[in-house]
């Protein structure tokens, strides 16, 4: 196991910069999730680390070694492909043992290691089967076993769960988490699924248009998105965004839109005060709905447009003159479609962004 470091890595395809100056350090034994929409460069970044894609600029280090120019086999990586890429003409045991065989290890050692790995991934009864005879989840586990048995310093996973159906995906997600706790490999895991990212990652690196936008622990990504993109990409439904102008009033700084106000915490006054316009971001669960009687006194007013009962909560779409806001309320809340309501923010959960750059305003 080792630390992995990317320094100013650039990868271009003709006119497109697929990976744009990415700096990223994955700590020893850390589970790092690369998250982003399709085409953001996350898979290309992973393939650069694997050595399957050459790097146009920058360096890649695994532990103290500069591996930038090394072929995949000399890097000490293991990779799980989205398609699993199992060898169809080999049995499960031969698939798992392939890497060891290439290394020229003695047969008994290969057998012992394959069996141990198979046990760890519940494949012991399937060693004689061929990939075509396995279910999706089993194939997935063979692919993981095959990449782990060579004891890579860094494990790379490219959307490993995306070909599984929903229930199996949940199961495998928990399985991967358990596995990582047991073998503690330094891992990079590429996904476009933010739920997977939040549940698996020690830290999440969010990419957009080839750039690394934010790299932080899941809760920080969720609570303090570095820009509007991150706030809207992570969380279902995404963060609500409202644009307004900063205004000072009776010793306070407020963001005022045509129909809402939001107080700015003193730490941000200086920065926010410099801007003409500011975007306020607030997550659905950080908005409280206040029904008719006392609605006047709240931060914004609207009408309940849609009520969706989602089991553990109700998701409201509240139409305000500005825009429709998503609000999450307890499943028992007595809300009706068409009802007028007031909205109140959990003020410490409000986030502020510069509309021109999209970046969060921080102290």
């Amino acid at each position: 196991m080792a630390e992995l470091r990317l320094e100013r890595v650039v990868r271009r395809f003709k006119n497109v910069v697929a990976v744009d100056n990415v700096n990223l350090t994955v700590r020893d034994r850390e589970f790092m999730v690369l998250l982003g929409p399709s085409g953001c460069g996350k898979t290309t970044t992973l393939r650069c680390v694997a050595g399957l894609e050459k790097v146009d600029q920058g360096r890649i280090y695994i532990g103290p070694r500069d591996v930038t120019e090394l072929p995949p086999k000399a890097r000490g990586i293991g990779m799980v492909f989205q398609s699993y890429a199992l060898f169809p003409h080999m049995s499960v045991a031969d698939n798992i043992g392939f890497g060891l065989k290439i290394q020229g290890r003695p047969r008994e050692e290969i057998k012992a290691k394959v069996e141990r790995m198979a046990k760890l991934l519940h494949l012991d009864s399937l060693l004689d089967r061929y990939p075509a005879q396995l279910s999706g989840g089993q194939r997935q586990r063979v692919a993981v076993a095959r990449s782990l048995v060579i004891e890579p310093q860094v494990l790379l996973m490219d959307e490993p769960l995306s070909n599984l159906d929903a229930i199996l995906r949940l199961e495998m997600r928990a399985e991967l988490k358990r596995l990582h706790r047991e073998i503690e490999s330094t891992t990079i895991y590429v996904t476009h699924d933010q739920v997977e990212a939040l549940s698996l990652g020690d830290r999440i690196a969010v990419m957009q248009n080839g750039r690394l936008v934010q790299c932080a622990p899941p809760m920080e990504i969720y609570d303090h998105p570095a820009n509007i993109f991150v706030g809207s990409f992570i969380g279902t439904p995404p963060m609500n965004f409202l644009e307004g102008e900063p205004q000072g009033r009776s010793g306070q700084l407020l963001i005022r839109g045509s129909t809402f106000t939001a107080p700015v915490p003193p730490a941000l006054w200086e920065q926010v005060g410099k801007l003409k316009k500011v975007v306020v971001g607030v997550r659905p669960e950080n908005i409280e709905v206040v029904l008719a009687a006392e609605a006047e006194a709240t931060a914004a007013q609207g009408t309940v447009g849609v009520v969706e009962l989602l089991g553990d909560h109700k998701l409201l779409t509240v139409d305000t003159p500005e825009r429709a806001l998503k609000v999450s309320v307890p499943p028992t809340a007595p809300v009706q479609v068409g009802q007028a309501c007031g909205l109140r923010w959990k003020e410490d959960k409000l986030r502020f962004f510069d509309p021109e750059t999209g970046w969060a305003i921080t102290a």
Partner: protein
Amino acid sequence: MERRKRGLAQVLFYGGALLLAIWTLLPLLLITLAAFTSRSELYSWPRSFLPRELSLESFLYFAKAHGVMEATLRSILVALLTILISLLIGAPAGYALSRFRFRGREAFRLGILMTRMFPTSLLAIPLAIMYINLGLYDTLLGVSLMHVTLALPFVVLTTASLFMKIPYDLEEAALTLGCSRLGAFVRICLPMVTPGLVAAAIFTFVVSWNEVYASSVLTLRNRTLPAHIMATLEASPLNFRFAGGFFMTLPALVFIFIIRKRLLHMWGVAINK
């Protein structure tokens, strides 16, 4: 109404297929029957459609005839040499076509087919002169090279379609598991395309085995079997001709029968891509 229309279409379709089949099979049947008829019966008149008794007399006569065995051996050598050269050149070209995006890739693919545009008869005389200058004339290698040019387009296009069906992921997985580029090809790609390569080899064999024209022009003493039969046809008796004809078609029929499914498959893919 609709059903009747469809019925009519089916009748036409199967009728057409039947006609084509008869067109192809009838001469084969006649040759086969004649090949197993004894010499005396072959020349008798009136002659029954089916031979009175099956006889290997014509075959033995054909096999023992001057030069036939040597020519057969040469034909087999030429065919094997053709297979070797075609696969050595064609398979890597097919691999390149399937794996790499390079400038002029489509033009290259089309160009390969275009080599089949020129009739052999047009090229034969200049080719013969060139061969004489190069010292290739009347050699097995010379005939093989000619056959390679005939078989190569097929080999390149079919191997390309074979490799195309193998996801590149598999080779990349092998790379991450410790293989070199060549190692990944040999350990992963090659075993998976072997059945297809065998089919391509068999087809190449048939192409070479059946080729008459170029072999006749490019050889004098070292004739391949078709060239030998062709050269002696005028002067040989009926039973020699029939036995020879049957002997020539047999390997082609058997081999094509063995690989028929794969052949359609390969061509289908090659045409669709």
